[in-house]
């Protein structure tokens, strides 16, 4: 199967803190990759470098064959103008831990905004497909509500619909259930599970080990800015080779 995301020796530091110290990772199209690891291991930063919300210090990231944020010429990478980066981002959906819905827009307008203003699609067609997307995440009746009138789980499902509205080639989830009350986690995971069943390429940073075991094609375990081990969930979660992985799993399970 073709490679959707190709990450090669990516380094990133904030001041003197090295957050990513040489990450190599390939994600195949149609697969679900779940990234696990203790807080501060760099997993969220890695996710944010993929859609260029964070710039890398060294290394390169390609999504669907296109180098993210840069243009290569010889052995140099030249930063792309913002317009180009924004266009690249419309092919990648990003779901935030804190939803980051636009509170002053209705649920429908949240979903409609990007396809209309960034992709210049006709509003009428976008509204129709937005209603279908909301239906799909189980919120068909909430189109006219404002985000704060919804529960956390409902807000996160709207955020997923908003990301899907761009018909992205890749979906990135940054701890999508960490800000939710425990009884609301299930409804969001159900939506992600459904997307996985439809063959959506996804990278999910999460602490939900059971979910990783069930849905992931590949589990990646990160610690201290490096990938410690990766493989099918049965291996990484069932019979981890590395001591770091075993210690982590012993703590969270």
């Amino acid at each position: 199967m073709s490679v959707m995301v190709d990450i090669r020796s990516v380094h990133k530091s904030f001041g003197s803190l090295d957050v990513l110290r040489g990450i190599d990772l390939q994600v195949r199209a149609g697969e679900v990759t779940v990234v696990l690891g203790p807080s501060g291991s760099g997993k969220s930063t890695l996710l944010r470098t993929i859609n260029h919300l964070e710039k890398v210090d060294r290394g390169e990231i390609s999504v669907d064959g296109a180098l993210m944020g840069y243009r290569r010429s010889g052995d140099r990478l030249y930063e792309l103008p913002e317009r180009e980066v924004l266009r690249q981002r419309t092919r990648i959906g990003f779901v935030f831990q804190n939803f980051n819905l636009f509170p002053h827009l209705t649920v429908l307008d949240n979903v409609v905004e990007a396809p209309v203003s960034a992709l210049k699609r006709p509003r009428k067609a976008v509204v129709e497909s937005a209603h279908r997307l909301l239906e799909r995440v189980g919120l068909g009746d909430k189109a006219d509500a404002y985000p704060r009138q919804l529960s956390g789980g409902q807000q996160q499902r709207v955020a997923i619909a908003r990301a899907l509205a761009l018909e992205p080639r890749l979906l990135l989830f940054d701890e999508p259930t960490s800000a939710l009350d425990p009884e609301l986690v299930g409804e969001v995971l159900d939506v992600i599970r459904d997307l996985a069943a439809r063959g959506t390429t996804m990278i999910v940073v999460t602490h939900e080990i059971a979910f990783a075991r069930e849905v992931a094609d590949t589990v990646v375990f990160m610690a201290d800015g490096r990938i410690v081990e990766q493989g099918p969930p049965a291996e990484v979660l069932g019979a981890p080779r590395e001591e770091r992985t075993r210690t982590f799993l012993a703590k969270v399970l």
Partner: protein
Amino acid sequence: MSSDTLAKVPTAPEIPEPADAPRVVPQRRYGQWAAAAVVLALLGFAVNSVLRNEAFQWDVVADYFTSDSILRGLWLTLWLTAVVMVLGFALGTLLAGFRLSANPVLRAVGWGYVWLFRSIPILVQLLLWFNIGALYPQVFGVKTVNLLSPVAVAIVGLTLHEAAYAAEVVRGGILSVDRGQIEAAQALGLSRWRRWWRIVLPQAMRTIVPPAGNMLIGTLKGTSIVSVIAVNDLLFSAQLIYHRTYQVIPLLMVATLWYAVVTSLLGIGQYYVEKHYARGTGNAR
């Protein structure tokens, strides 16, 4: 309340009260009653003295309240306020952009502007602009005195002053918008302009409107300062009349009442603007 209306409401099964359950008797607040009585008495005394003091000459107030020259002055006050607010906030928004810019030169210039124009009293600034001819007798071959009429001086001076304060208000509003909002808009590929116009500004407005409403009312009354450079505003129109008729107090009352009327209308307008920008927050007052 009668017992039969209560009976219709389904209630929890009755728990028998212990016979000795104590009843609550609220404290009697004699002090509050006394304070209210004293304040009301003083207020009545003040209102009475205003209404009965012949020197206020309320009949003269009524005569001049809608006179042509007063209404012309009111009109100038209103449009001068509007022009100064619009230009002041336009420049202020630009300066707020400077102060939040990644460019250190723009940041320094923005900071310097706010520092300078908040430091100069508006009266001093108006007098400086009024006498600018002494510094620059000619600009591009035109006599400065001809270029800047008193009204133009008023617009320039008040706008520059207003912009310094507006810059801080707008900057505070922008900073109040959660950083995650901008990231979400970036992740969705929204252009810089769209992010600002559709996402950041409407949310910043919630924080901007209350102090901006304050500034609008302040500016409305603040424009009365242009009477010192003989601009025919509401106050100056009243002064022109009382310099002729010596009816100082009634004409000051005319100006005062008009300022109060417009301020009240602006307050009502502010209520609705705030309500508009509180959409989706769940605490629309």
